[in-house]
């Protein structure tokens, strides 16, 4: 027995200097080949020009305080931020009475309180949370926003506006379109001929016309056919129109997911003795919906941006009310509308980007594939 001598490897030599640290990273990622170098330089030039212009416009040449248009008439004028500042209340609440705005704030806060724990997978009490958000919250929001009960001052929906209308239309559309869309998708794949043709008809009609047409019909034509004295609320008509329209799109997204599920899954569910609804709820839909999360969120984001079309029927969403306030002569300057559009674009971007990031998070969490 000879005592085995342990072989000990030499410690590894450090990586070559030119591949580590900031220099190494720059070298491998930005200037690896001549064409990389060229692209990097062009990209940097474009970035410099864009950012330089943007910083000059939004900050260096911008005006930050003032009471009217006179503040924004410098020789070199950037953004006219006092316009946004003066109109901010209008942009958020529209013509909702100032004394009643706390009601909107309260609804918004209670919505956020319900939504955040629902979005965090680790948070407990999911079932109670869903009941709160889908059962209690809509009723609470409706009573608080419209008023007329419990001593609350009634506020007509014609006075609503700005971000409030955008969120009401978008959230109603999103919440209503998912269950409706799932039902329509299932109906379209159903074996029952009447259900199937009804679903196909509904989907194809609503997908076949532009949203503007749906809104216009709901707002202008509908009152002509209704008997005298029967008058639906205009916002309500739009909400129904938007919900029906987006559920037709959602149905097609969900159907895409259903078609991607292999037949074996259906057969396996049947072999377990599950009925139609149970197999859908426990086996098919969880897999199908997970597959189409990007498509669903895509529809949500599209819907959120489509809310601006309610302007055509005289409702002022965020973009509508920003444009509306361009017509205030006491703020009319060459930069006013650019500033207003920049503000509206930023708000829309924040919401859409948040939705997009959350969808990526959910996709990763629900992914059952091994990396």
């Amino acid at each position, binding site marked *: 027995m000879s005592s085995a001598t342990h072989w000990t490897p030499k410690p590894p030599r450090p990586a070559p200097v030119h591949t580590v640290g900031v220099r190494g990273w720059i070298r491998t990622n930005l200037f690896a080949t001549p064409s990389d170098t060229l692209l990097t330089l062009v990209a940097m030039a474009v970035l410099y020009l864009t950012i330089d212009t943007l910083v000059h416009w939004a900050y260096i040449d911008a005006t930050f305080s003032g009471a009217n248009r006179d503040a924004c008439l410098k020789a070199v004028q950037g953004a006219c931020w006092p316009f946004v500042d003066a109109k901010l209340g*209008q942009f958020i609440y529209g013509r909702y009475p100032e004394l009643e705005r706390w009601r909107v704030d309260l609804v918004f806060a209670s919505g956020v309180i319900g939504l955040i724990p629902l979005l965090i997978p680790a948070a407990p009490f999911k079932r109670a949370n869903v009941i709160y958000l889908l059962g209690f919250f809509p009723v609470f929001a409706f009573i608080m926003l419209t008023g007329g009960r419990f001593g609350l001052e009634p506020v007509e929906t014609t006075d609503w506006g700005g971000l409030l209308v955008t969120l009401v239309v978008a959230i109603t559309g999103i919440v209503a379109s998912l269950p409706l869309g799932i039902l329509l998708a299932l109906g379209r794949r159903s074996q029952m001929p009447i259900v199937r043709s009804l679903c196909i008809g509904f989907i194809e009609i609503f997908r076949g016309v532009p949203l503007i047409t749906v809104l*216009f019909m709901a707002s202008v034509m509908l009152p*002509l056919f209704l008997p005298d004295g029967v008058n639906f609320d205009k916002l309500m008509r739009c909400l129904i129109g938007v919900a029906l329209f987006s559920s037709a799109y959602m149905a097609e997204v969900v159907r895409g997911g259903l078609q991607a599920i292999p037949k074996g899954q259906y057969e396996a569910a049947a072999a377990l003795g599950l009925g139609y609804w149970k197999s859908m709820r426990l086996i098919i839909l969880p897999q199908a919906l997970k597959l189409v999360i990007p498509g669903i969120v895509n529809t949500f984001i599209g819907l959120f941006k489509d809310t601006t079309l309610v302007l055509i029927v*005289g409702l002022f969403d965020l973009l509508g009310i920003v444009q509306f306030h361009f*017509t205030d002569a006491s703020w009319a300057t060459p930069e006013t509308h650019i500033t207003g559009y920049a503000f509206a674009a930023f708000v829309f971007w924040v919401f859409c980007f948040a939705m997009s990031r959350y969808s990526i998070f959910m996709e990763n969490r629900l992914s059952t594939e091994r990396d």
Partner: protein
Amino acid sequence: MKKLVEMCVQRVALVFAVCVSTLNFSFAAGETLAVVQERGYVKCGVSQGLPGFSNPDDRGNWNGIDVDLCRAVAAAVFGSDENVKFTPLSAKERFTALQSGEVDLLARNTTWSMHRDTALGVDFTGVNYYDGQGFMVLAELGIKSALELDGASLCTNLGTTTELNAADYFRTNGMTYEIVAFEKADEAVSAYNAGRCDAYTTDQSALYAQRLKLTDPKAHIVLPEIISKEPLGPVVRQGDDQWGDIVQWSHHAMVNAEELGVSSANIEAMKTSKNPNIRRLLGLDGTFGDNMGIPNDWSYHIIRTVGNYAETFERNVGKDTPLGIARGVNALWKDGGLQYAPPIR
């Protein structure tokens, strides 16, 4: 195929027209006033924002010359200009909204034309602003009249009547010109601002509004000539003459008040006036309100709350507002303008 589409369109239009005409029957004489009084406020259709005519202030309140007309009607009916609600309407939906009863009157910078007055089941009750196409040029060019624009290049909107009106005007006066047309008003204004053309042409009220968006508004002037007729006025449903009278005379009361020198500032003092015209205007003599189904002091409340025509003009579009529009053709007939109201007698 094209024929088929045309036929379908015609059918739809027919159904639509029948609906509209049956609805018109449901608004018989006197009914609008009764509905308004029952409801407690006037529903007034306005624009979705037009500087000086109907636009919001920082707190979302409506301002403007059209808005003031709505408030005047409310003051005539209820004695308070607060009893009015405004419905912003797009150009497309304005007449349908009026016909379907969604609004009681339109004060929405609507041009009075024969087609609209005769074919759409609506009635125009007067002209609260005489608009028309004009020209804007750089002040430093020293041009004082549109007749000096020979050889000029004109920025304007593509395919509108504006373009045709300009063509007619230049041909009639034997001048040459060059059109630089753009899809949108904003593009045309930026092009003019950047010096792409010598003059910018559109309706005068819009010229004044667009001028505010130029880099140096004071360097530009609006030439006095008006080359087209765009009489803007309030509109009511056809068939209810009583309501039409109320809207019509609300405007006339303001014009008559200016002519007689009665304003919101001096109206209390004017109550002791011996002038029979003023006494009739303020409802002290006669039963003019009764004849329309409203209180006899209807015009007193209009002038007390909204003011006379000069007041609403100067407050919303006049010299001291950012728009800075001169009275021009909207001056009283005595001062060489077109604003003329029949006497209250």
